[in-house]
């Protein structure tokens, strides 16, 4: 197994802060902490090369520098890339994380970095880069190298990694299923009794943090607006010609209205498994209120109405996927010169 290690200028033995602009370079074999790493890896793996770069350079100009570093790594034909340990050094941590992410993305090689959990790079990159937690200072070097060696060997063997808490890496924000010896109800009861006894307990689900969306200010002059109807209600032409999914939709659709003033009963159906749509099948305007906005436009109370509506299905929507839908719909609305939206939620 061939391993390449990335270090900063200091751990590569080239000097401290004064040499932070050291350009990318490489040496065959292990250097500095790599010597101890090699002993821990044993006969199964060899540190075939060490690639280094100054912290300032990699932190300030990653777009030009990181590809060069990856090129130097590639020349050693590694099976695994390891980076650091960077401890709590922010710029070194960024370099390690960026090099690991790029090595995996461009070379398809598994990679791991080591740094303190409070390193800013850990917070920024833990979702995409495997990170071994370390102490804040180099006092934890031996333990960090032990963990790096163990995980590097597992990556090199192609072994799937178990949970973060078991394997000893920072959680990457992926929650995978496992089986506990007790039912979830038994475990919840255990949490409850611990609470009542004032004993320590750990919830199994950390509460998520969602974006807060501030409502936009009122529209200054509705009589001049160009309005579009957008909804996650799943209203589609009868027969659902574009196969909008009833749950976890992976598409959004724009349907032209052909100048009509009213959505006809029978012309639409609902592709959404999350609510009782009988009321909407009776009168689709109850979901996409075309009749009402056309009337308002006729009376001059609002400006134009876009002659199309946008729809997806919000039922069990995956948040990241829904955010992509929203960005794409917003971009399309801009192309249609729409400046206001009536967003109908179900």
């Amino acid at each position, binding site marked *: 197994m061939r391993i390449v290690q990335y270090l900063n200028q200091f751990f590569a033995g080239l000097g401290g802060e004064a040499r932070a602009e050291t350009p990318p370079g490489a040496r065959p074999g292990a250097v500095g902490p790599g010597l101890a790493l090699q002993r821990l890896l044993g006969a199964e793996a060899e540190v075939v090369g060490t690639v280094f770069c100054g912290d300032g350079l990699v932190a300030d100009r990653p777009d030009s520098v990181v590809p060069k570093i990856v090129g130097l790594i590639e020349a050693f034909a590694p099976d695994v890339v390891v980076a650091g340990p960077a401890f709590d050094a922010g710029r070194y941590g960024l370099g390690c994380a960026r090099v690991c992410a790029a090595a995996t993305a461009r070379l398809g090689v598994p990679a791991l970095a080591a740094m303190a959990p409070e390193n800013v790079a850990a917070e920024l990159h833990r*979702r995409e880069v495997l990170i071994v937690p370390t102490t804040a200072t180099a006092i934890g070097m031996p333990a960090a190298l032990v963990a790096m060696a163990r995980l590097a060997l597992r990556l090199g063997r192609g072994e799937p*990694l*178990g*949970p*973060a*808490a078991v394997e000893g890496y920072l*959680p*990457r*924000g*992926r*929650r*995978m*299923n*496992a*089986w*506990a*010896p*007790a*039912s*979830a*109800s*038994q*475990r*919840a*009861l*255990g*949490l*409850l*009794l611990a*609470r*009542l006894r004032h004993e320590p*307990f750990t*919830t*199994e*689900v950390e*509460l*998520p943090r*969602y974006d807060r969306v501030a409502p936009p200010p009122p529209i200054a002059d509705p009589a001049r607006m160009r309005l579009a109807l957008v909804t996650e209600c799943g209203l589609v032409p009868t027969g659902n010609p574009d196969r909008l999914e*009833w749950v*976890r939709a992976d598409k959004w659709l724009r349907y032209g209205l052909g100048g009509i003033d009213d959505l006809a009963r029978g012309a639409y*159906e*609902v592709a*959404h*498994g*999350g*609510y*009782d*749509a*009988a009321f*909407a*099948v009776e009168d689709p305007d109850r979901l996409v209120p075309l009749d009402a906005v056309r009337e308002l436009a006729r009376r001059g109370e609002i400006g134009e109405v876009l002659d199309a509506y946008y729809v997806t299905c919000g*039922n*069990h929507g*995956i*948040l*990241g*996927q829904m955010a992509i839908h929203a960005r794409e719909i917003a971009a399309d609305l801009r192309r249609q010169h729409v400046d206001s939206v009536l967003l109908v939620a179900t």
Partner: protein
Amino acid sequence: MHLDVAAFPVRRARLGAPAAYDDGVLTIDPDVVRRLVLGDPRIADVRVELAHPGESVRVLRALDAIEPLHKPAAPVSAFPGFLGPPHTVGHGLTHRLSGFTVVQVTDFPFPASGVQAFEEGVIEMSGPGAAYSGCADRVNLFLVLTPGRAVSNVDYDDAVRRAALRVADRLAALTIGHAPEHVEVVDHGGEDGGRRRIVWVHQVRAQGPMVQSFLYGHEMSGMVPTVLDPTELLDGALLGANYKTGSKTPTYVHTRHPSLLALAARHGRDLHLAGVIVARGHHENEFLKERSAHFVAKLATLLRADGALCTYEATGNTHIDFMLTVQALERAGIPAASVVHEYGGPLGDDPPLVDFVPEAVALASSGGIDRRLSLPAVERVIGGDRLAHRGEPAHGPLDLPIQELFAATATMNERGAVAVEH
């Protein structure tokens, strides 16, 4: 109340005559089943099939699953309100065909859309889907039904439920005169002896036809939360009629819920089970959700609860009812711990909860229900050639999210699923 539950385990079932229960083997007479089912003209035909754990069998269009119960001594019946008057159960003697289920399998006669559209639950009796499928670890009798002269889907649903209960009752009655393998003595009365008083808050889905539950023979959409003795549930006071794939709580889980079993196991040792608060989920608006949440907290206070174990059926809208209930309990000074199933997408990297309140500080995970499974081809399919709402051919390999398997949510709680960080 004092209830004796006599367990008659079913290790094997076979079709034949005469019908009998003998030493773990249940012989089912298909002609008797036919007569019981077809006595109702709303059902035109029935075919009976059996499946045991580990068989290469996939079941489509499974609605509810019932573990048969029978109360040999009058005047009350198990599954009150359906098999007998809506009189209080949970006392006396009940015979139970443990490990056995009667499962209805059918399409509905009339088209429907939205939440009333049919979403089956798929049962995988073997392979990687079995771990997440309700009934996969049980001996099952499938009633494969053809609609008859029903005037609506709601009418047909009623016929299907009553037919399955008639069959279940008749099968459980076969144990009369036999010695049970063991008798479970259940009595949660008496003094708490200074032990902490715990209530179980059991929020069930009541959204309307196709997504509902029945309490003593009646649907629950109009009710405020109420209190049951745990023994009433063991006697079938609650029936599942939620036909949403994975998020349903089938009747056999209502009668043997993992929360009830967890509490009963510690009752009289380190806690006192002070009662079950049954609440409806999926209220139509914030006002009704708040009203229900505060009724739960009030009932828990009246029961002098020190803590509440909270579980819920279904997801989305009902999850909001649930979180408001947790909040109301905490604000009433009653600490809560809850079971939640998670979302998170196929990779588990999306936020896991639909909604939450800051008071939800003690959550047990029953796993992520939208991770995907690759299921191999099977030898036998019950319930159709194609999946009901997805349309794929049913015999071949399938790639499905876990939540499309029958009662996956309740099953994952029962079997100990948990989502852990990677």
